[in-house]
């Protein structure tokens, strides 16, 4: 776990960091952060509890406990990562552990939008490419330079063209992933739209 947590701010185009691999399909958000840790009114203390059950079961051998993964910030995963519960606590816990970007075969929808909303880009690669990275990581450390302008990840040995939704990519490059202020700009349009909705007219009693 990183000692100091800095949440991302504004626009960015580069993420450089050490990779950490977590092998497995359909890793759900209950596993990323078990429900008992959701009893909180802020996200601050979630970092240390990420994958709590899985880590206890593996007694120090979980990737998030291995010394070799200390300081890692780019998470490599397999398919349908983050399925299940919509809890934003899951990406918040990963972010507070030190994760700044995730590369995987595929992501669950709500998890993906939660990641974008808090400034963690999620990239996709083919099953084979993920396998290459995971095998590489079995033997040595891997440092990726991720460039959002080219959607690429490169190290001294490896280079990949990453998949990312164009809308998400633009949001990071422009800083609009931090959505609130952009949405509020359309205040007049919002009010008009709301007042025009048929059901606002016939639902006077709520």
């Amino acid at each position, binding site marked *: 776990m990183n000692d100091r947590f800095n949440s991302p701010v504004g626009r960015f185009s580069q993420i450089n960091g050490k990779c950490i691999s977590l092998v*497995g399909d359909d890793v759900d958000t209950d596993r990323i952060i078990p429900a008992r840790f959701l009893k909180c009114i802020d996200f601050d203390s979630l970092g240390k509890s990420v994958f709590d*059950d899985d880590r206890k079961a593996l007694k120090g051998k979980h990737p998030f406990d291995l010394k070799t993964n200390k300081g890692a910030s780019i998470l490599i995963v397999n398919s*349908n990562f983050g399925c299940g519960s919509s809890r934003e606590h899951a990406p918040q816990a990963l972010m507070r552990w030190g994760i700044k970007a995730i590369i995987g075969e595929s992501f669950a929808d*709500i998890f993906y939008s*939660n990641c974008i909303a808090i400034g963690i880009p999620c990239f996709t690669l083919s099953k084979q490419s993920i396998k290459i990275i995971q095998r590489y990581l079995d033997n040595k450390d891997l440092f990726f330079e991720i460039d959002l302008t080219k959607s690429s990840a490169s190290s001294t040995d490896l280079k990949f063209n990453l998949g990312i939704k164009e809308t*998400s990519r633009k949001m990071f490059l422009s800083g609009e992933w931090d959505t609130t202020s952009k949405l509020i700009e359309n205040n007049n349009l919002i009010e008009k739209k709301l007042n025009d909705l048929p059901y606002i007219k016939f639902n006077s009693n*709520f």
Partner: protein
Amino acid sequence: MSQDTLFDKVWELHKVANLPGGSDQILIGLHLIHEVTSPQAFGALKDKNLKVKFPNRTVATVDHIVPTDNQSRPFKDNLAEQMLDTLEKNCFEHKIKFFNIGSGKQGIVHVVAPELGLTQPGMTIACGDSHTSTHGAFGSIAFGIGTSQVRDVLASQTIAMNKLKVRQIWCENKLSNGIYAKDLVLHIINHLGVKAGVGYAYEFAGPAISALSMEERMTICNMSIEGGARCGYINPDEKTFSYIKGKLCSPRNENWDKAIKWWESLQSDENSIYDDVFKIDASKVEPTVTWGITPGQSIGINQKIPSLKEIDPNDQFIAGEAYEYMGFKPGQPIKDTPIDVCFIGSCTNGRISDLRVAAQVLGNYKIAKNIKAFVVPGSERVAKEAKKEGLDKIFLDAGFQWREPGCSMCLAMNSDKLIGNQVSASSSNRNFKGRQGSPSGRTLLMSPAMVAAAAINGKVSDVRDFLNK
């Protein structure tokens, strides 16, 4: 790209703008909040010095953390008390309607909104909870959001989102006797897989869907997310309208006629275009039980746990994990698997019709020795109705505990938890590792009727053996 489906119509109606990055700004007609995913959103508003833009478009209740045995305040669990206290303060400060414990309207958010008539066709509905897809049963476009998006809805009544594709799931024929909506949706997820819905809204249609009651339809849409689809919906029909009529918040008098006319216009057109269509034969569905650690790992009651060879290569890794975690072997029958705990409740199957059918199975039976069985009604209204019908007595006489409303052991945020590697027969929606509160606890998902049958026999059983007696 889909065209002229209900999803297309409702999306277009709520689209405020194209955002510079290319996603759509979508207006949320009804925003539901609860104690777990809202405190940080209110905190963020405060940090940004923002107000709730349309407080009357947000409704709150408390469900995830509430104890279901003793609900007197302050709760024994300090953290749970703090969460409810925070929600109370936030709702008070921002003038948001809050259905608190004892109001007669509290309960699981996805049970409460429909029963109060808040959920209506044609709305966009969002909530910081993945099972928001439940509300799609009424022909609304409803989906779960994270806390940052809760913040955005509070601040602007909108979110930034990419339009989903639409897959129609056409369910031919009808379910047989003793087969329920839960069996059907588990069957669908088993066939399509837990990832197939990523990027899609699911439109459930066909004779088997039309034949379902509104509460059964909610069970189907509720579990869309278990198939990967953030949103699931059913075109509104006469059943939808008659369910809504006369509810506390539903349109009245001349507004009712206007509402019906509009709701009817929302249905997917006969010639609408889908991005994909998937067909299944509902008459082939058996009472279905999960054997693994994803809701897609299910089999019919008379089937055996599949071997790796029988499983799609893409799903073999998680299947291997499932054998190990569950302690089950390929080829083993699911029927007669011993059960420790029986749970009837949740936003999937905690409604009055669920309790009725489970009580009908129980009849005069007693539950097996050494089984802990409990019923957690989905809401205060469900509990009240059940008591009026004497269902609580049937459960109590059988040996079930009768609890107060909440989410309870669906996700075990209160004190209702599995212990060690106990096996539960559960009417809830997720059988993930550790989901029911013990890191080694094992969950078998099934219909409430099947849970009742398992409680009587102390092992996984075919509910049809009870219904046919």
